[in-house]
């Protein structure tokens, strides 16, 4: 069964060379005929499917469109052309701690962020201890988040996002923060989710991490899909080009 179907997706951005942020500027530029945009395709005609239970890796250099693709899948961007279909719930980990309010305490943020992800307060209440335990931040629960280190914020973000059993989990290089102990813990958690039927999409620059976790990989280059297939084939081809 296909959990995610990406069909011929293109994403175009208008890079306004002279960004007009006020009416006056806008009209001035329009009158002067200077109102031109540089079109930039972050994604071009990308097509692939992700099946249920896949641990899907996305690789590519910086600026190849990986993050854009994740945002299209999770619904943040609407593709300029093409369609995406996702079955079931998505837990997006585009950036750990997106939606945290730095002035609120960790306890308040757990509730706020949980509801951002569409959870009910009752459910969060039940799982509260589990979240706290996983993030190992019991002693700092009532401290405003602005006093936290980035590693601490990442932990709590990961703990909240993975507390449910989402149908699809999207992770964008989130495992690069935190120490190696926490990274191991996260990977373990993701494997556990996967055994229970969650489909994963992982973006990482660490090819070892991809090889260790994924069973399928897509390789993006300058917004186009260069290759998609099982991990070994794609990773070997990728390594051959980029490590010589």
């Amino acid at each position, binding site marked *: 069964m296909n959990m995610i179907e990406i069909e011929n997706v293109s994403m175009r951005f*208008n890079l306004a060379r002279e960004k007009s*942020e006020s009416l*006056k500027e806008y009209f001035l530029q329009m009158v002067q005929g200077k109102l031109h945009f540089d079109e930039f395709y972050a994604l071009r005609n990308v097509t692939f499917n992700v099946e249920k239970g896949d641990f899907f890796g996305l690789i590519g250099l910086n600026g190849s469109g990986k993050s854009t693709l994740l945002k299209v899948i999770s*619904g943040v961007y609407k593709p300029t052309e093409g369609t995406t279909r996702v079955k079931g719930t*998505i837990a997006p980990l585009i950036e750990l701690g997106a939606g945290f309010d730095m002035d609120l305490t960790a306890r*308040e943020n757990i509730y706020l962020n949980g509801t*951002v992800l569409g959870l*009910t307060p009752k459910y969060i209440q039940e799982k509260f201890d589990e979240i706290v335990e996983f993030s190992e931040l019991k002693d700092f629960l009532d401290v405003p988040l602005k006093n936290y280190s980035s590693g601490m914020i990442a932990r709590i973000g990961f703990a909240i996002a993975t507390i449910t059993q989402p149908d699809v989990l999207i992770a964008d290089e989130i495992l690069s923060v935190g120490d190696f102990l926490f990274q191991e813990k996260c990977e373990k958690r993701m494997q556990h989710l996967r055994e229970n039927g969650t489909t994963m999409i992982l973006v990482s620059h660490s090819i070892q991490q991809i090889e260790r976790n994924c069973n399928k990989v897509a390789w993006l280059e300058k917004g186009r899909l260069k290759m998609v297939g099982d991990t070994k084939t794609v990773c070997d081809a990728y390594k051959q080009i980029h490590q010589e």
Partner: protein
Amino acid sequence: MKLFKAYCQDFFRYRYLLYNLVGRDFKLKYRRSVLGVIWSVLNPLLMNVVMVIVFSTIMDMRSAGIKNFSVYLIIGQLLFSFFNEATSVAMGSVLSSAPLLRKVYIPKYIFPLEKVTFSLVNCLFSFIALIIVMVVTRAPLHLTVILALYPLMTLFVFSLGIGLILATLAVFFRDIMHLWNVFTTALMYFSAIFYDPMGLQTSPSVLFLQKFISFNPVYWYITAFRGVVLDGRLLTSAEILVCGICGIVALIVGLLVFRKYQDKFVLHM
């Protein structure tokens, strides 16, 4: 209709988020202030005292002909500041939640909705100030006070509609934020907060003012509210119609405009 249903389903799923966001705003607004939420009452109360003193001593003739000027004034102040606050905060709401909208999918209208709701909650607290003023000035309590819910709720819908339009505009043209500020100041003088346009001496310019002011929806909400609370009368059919229609039209236009442009928001923030 189908569109409306989709909105409702979305709303149902994210109702806790709305609740939590309002809670957050509330906590942050009063965190570390000694009197906290009491300021919601104290602020309009003190403003009212200042304005009553100003208008009953320096500019005495204006308050002539109004039965209970303090109550008359504070109703105008409260409702107008609700409208003003709700629309102004809703305007910047989408922009200020850009970091979140770029990372997670959330129905975007939740932010203007949240800000208008938060303003309403604030406004409800401020009604304690209205009660205090009514008690102090020994204003009689009429049963028709319950009817005040109608202008209040329709004003909420109206503000939400305007807020949605402004939030959309603000994403594309930041200038609107400054413009709106000027506009609401002008609007305040045409909302009859501290004078009664119908009680002024008739002259051509006053007739023009009366005509002009009757095109201001906010004036209708305030008048309807005053009618049921202060005069103890029922709502006139004109008030029911104008308040209701303005609210619904604003909301529909707001939703349509917002919906049309919401997919482009992330590209402009």
